[in-house]
C-alpha cells in the first residue's frame, strides 16, 4: 500500500467510526427503557419554553426514522416521509450545527458546558499521562535492561500492584491522605470564593488542586506503561540486530538509544492507542472522586442527576476524542515505522 493511500484509508476509517458512534448514541437513547428524549421533555426542571424549544429542535413529534414511528417494531410508521424530516436526521443535523441539547440540571446548552469541561479533562489527562508515560517508560527500560535481576523484580511487582488498583479507590486513598496530612484541597479546580491577587496565585491554586488527581492518574498508568515497555524491550533485546550492534562495539547505552528504543516504541504506541479507552475510564473515575470539572466528572454528575442530554453529549464527545486520539496514534506509528506504507522490494 502506498503511504498516501494508507493515510487516506485511516482517515476514512476514523470518519466511519465516528459516524457509527453518532448512530449508536442516537439509538441507545431512543431504544433503552425510559426513552429519555421524550421523558426529558416533561422533566419538571425545564421551563415550559425550554420544553417547547426542545420538542421543536429535536423534532420529537416526527417519526424516529423512515418506516418507524418509534423503535417499537410492532408500531410501523410511514415509509413515505421525507427521510430528512425524521428524528434521526434532525439529530444528525443538530450535531453538525453543534446543538447537543439543553442540560436539565443547569438549563444551559450542553455544548457550552462540555466545551469548558473538555479543556479541564485535557489538562488533567495531559499532566497525568505525560508523567505516567515518561516515568513508566523509564522504569520499563530499566527493568528490561536489568531483566531477571532484583531491580527488575521490584519494578515488576510495583507495576503489577499499580495495575491492579481500582483507579477510583486509589483516588479516595490519596485524597484521604493528602487532605488530612498534606493540607491539599479536597476537590474542584480552584478554591471557591477566592479573589486572586495575580495570575501567578491563580496558577498556584490550580496546581495545588491538580496534584492529587494527576498523581492518581500517574500511578495507575505508570504500572501499565512500565509493563508494556518492559515486555516489548525484552523482545527487542533478544533480536539478532542487537547482537550485531554489540559486535560492532557499541556500549549498552548506545545500543539502547540507537537500536532498541525506537523498535520497542512501536508496540508501545499501538498499545497506548488501544488503551485510550482505559485513559477515558480513568478520567471518569478520577474526576468523580476529586470533583474535577471535566468530561468524566460530567458523566458522573449526569448519571446521578438523570441529566440525559448531558450524558449523551459527554459520551459522544469522549468517544469522538478517543477515535481522534487513536487516529493520531496510528499516524504517529506510520511515521515511526518506515515499513508502513512503503513498497517492499524484496
Amino acid at each position: 500500500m502506498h503511504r498516501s493511500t494508507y493515510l487516506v484509508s485511516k482517515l476514512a476509517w476514523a470518519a466511519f467510526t465516528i459516524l457509527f458512534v453518532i448512530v449508536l448514541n442516537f439509538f441507545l437513547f431512543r431504544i433503552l427503557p425510559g426513552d429519555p428524549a421524550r421523558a426529558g421533555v416533561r422533566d419538571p426542571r425545564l421551563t415550559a419554553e425550554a420544553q417547547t424549544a426542545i420538542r421543536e429542535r429535536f423534532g420529537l413529534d416526527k417519526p424516529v426514522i423512515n418506516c418507524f414511528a418509534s423503535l417499537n417494531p410492532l408500531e410501523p410508521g410511514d415509509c413515505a416521509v421525507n427521510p430528512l424530516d425524521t428524528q434521526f436526521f434532525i439529530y444528525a443535523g443538530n450535531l453538525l450545527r453543534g446543538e447537543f441539547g439543553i442540560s436539565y440540571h443547569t438549563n444551559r446548552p450542553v455544548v457550552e458546558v462540555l466545551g469548558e469541561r473538555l479543556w479541564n479533562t485535557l489538562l488533567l489527562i495531559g499532566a497525568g499521562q505525560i508523567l505516567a508515560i515518561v516515568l513508566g517508560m523509564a522504569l520499563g527500560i530499566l527493568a528490561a535492561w536489568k531483566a531477571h535481576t532484583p531491580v527488575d523484580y521490584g519494578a515488576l511487582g510495583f507495576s503489577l500492584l499499580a495495575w491492579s488498583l481500582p483507579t477510583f479507590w486509589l483516588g479516595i486513598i490519596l485524597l484521604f491522605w493528602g487532605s488530612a496530612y498534606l493540607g491539599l484541597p479536597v476537590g474542584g479546580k480552584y478554591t471557591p470564593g477566592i479573589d486572586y491577587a495575580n495570575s501567578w496565585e491563580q496558577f498556584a491554586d490550580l496546581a495545588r488542586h491538580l496534584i492529587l488527581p494527576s498523581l492518581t492518574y500517574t500511578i495507575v498508568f505508570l504500572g501499565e506503561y512500565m509493563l508494556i515497555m518492559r515486555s516489548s524491550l525484552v523482545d527487542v533485546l533478544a533480536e539478532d540486530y542487537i547482537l550485531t550492534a554489540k559486535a560492532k562495539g557499541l556500549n549498552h547505552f548506545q545500543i539502547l538509544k540507537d537500536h532498541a528504543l525506537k523498535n520497542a516504541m512501536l508496540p508501545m504506541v499501538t498499545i497506548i492507542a488501544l488503551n485510550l479507552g482505559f485513559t477515558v475510564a480513568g478520567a471518569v473515575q478520577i474526576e468523580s472522586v476529586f470533583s474535577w470539572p471535566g468530561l468524566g466528572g460530567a458523566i458522573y454528575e449526569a448519571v446521578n442527576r438523570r441529566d440525559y442530554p448531558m450524558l449523551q453529549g459527554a459520551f459522544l464527545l469522549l468517544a469522538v476524542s478517543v477515535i481522534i486520539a487513536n487516529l493520531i496514534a496510528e499516524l504517529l506509528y506510520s511515521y515511526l515505522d518506515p515499513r508502513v506504507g512503503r513498497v517492499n522490494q524484496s
Partner: protein
Amino acid sequence: MEQATGGYRGVWRRLRRNPIGMIGLTMLVTAIVVALLAPWLSPYDPNAVSRVTIMDVYQPPSPEHWLGADDAGRDVLTNFLYGARVSLTVGFFASFIAVAIGGLLGLTAGFLGGRTEGVLMRFTDIMLVIPDLPLAVVIVALTKPSLTNIILVIGLLGWTSTARLVRAQTLSVKQRKFVLRARAIGAGNRYIMRRHIFPLVLPLLVVNTVLVISLAILNESTLSFLGLGDPATLSWGQMLNYAFTRGAMSAGAWWALIPPGFGIVWVVLACTLLGQGLEQALNPRLLTHHLAADRTLTALRRLPPDPAPSSEGIT
C-alpha cells in the same frame, strides 16, 4: 502449542514451578474459598434487621466489630466477606459471556476468512475504539441497575480483545500441517474447528479468561462506585460508593474505605499474576538477553603463562 509444550500436564508442571503463577493461583483460591464460606466466617447476618442508633454509625474497629461499622451501623467485616461473593459472581459470569462471544467471533473470523472475517474484524475494531466504561455507564444508567444488567453490560462490551487474540491464534493454527491435511482428506469445517483448531486455541482462551475476569471485577466495582450498582446487593464497589458519598471521608472512617478496596486489589492482582504465570507456562520462551550483565569470564581458569604454541597430539 499443545504438542510442542507437552500438553496440559506439561503446562501444569511448569505453572507449579512458576512462583508468580502459584502466588496468583493461591490468592484466587483463597478469595473463592472466603466467598463460599462467607456465611460461616461472618460474625453477623448481613440481612438481619437490627436497631441502629446514631452511635453505631462509623463505629471504629472494636472487639465486636473487628473492622468497625459502616454508614448504616452494619458490620464492615460481614459486608466485606459477602461482598466477595458479589464481585466474584459478576467477574466470573461477565467474563464467561465476554470470552464466549470473543472466542466465537475470533474463531469464526479466523477460520472462515474472506468477507466474513473482514466484516467481523471491522466491527471488532469499532467496538475496540469506543471507550467501554462510558458506554457501560450510559447503558446501565438508561436501564434498571441490577446485577443481571451489570453482568450483561460488562460481558457484552468486554469481548473485543479476546476476539482479536483468538483470531490471530486461529490464523496461525489454520496453517499447521495437520489442519491442512485434515482439510485435504475432506474433513468438514465444523469438524476441523472442533477437533483441530479449538483445542489449540483453548489454552490461550484460558489465559485470556483469567485476565478478562480481573477487568470485569474492576469494571463492576467502578460502575457500582459511580452509583450504578444493584441497590439490593452490596458489592465491594457499592460499599465504597456508600462510604464515599455518605461521609466516611469527613468522619475519618478509613475502616469503611480500606477493606473493600483491598478485596478488589486482592482478586485483580491474583488474576493478573495467575494470567502472567499461565502465559509463561503455556509459552515458555527462552529469550536471549543480549544486554545481560557480562559474566563470560567469571569462570575462566587462566592458562599457565606462555603455553606451548601447539600442543596437538599430547594428552
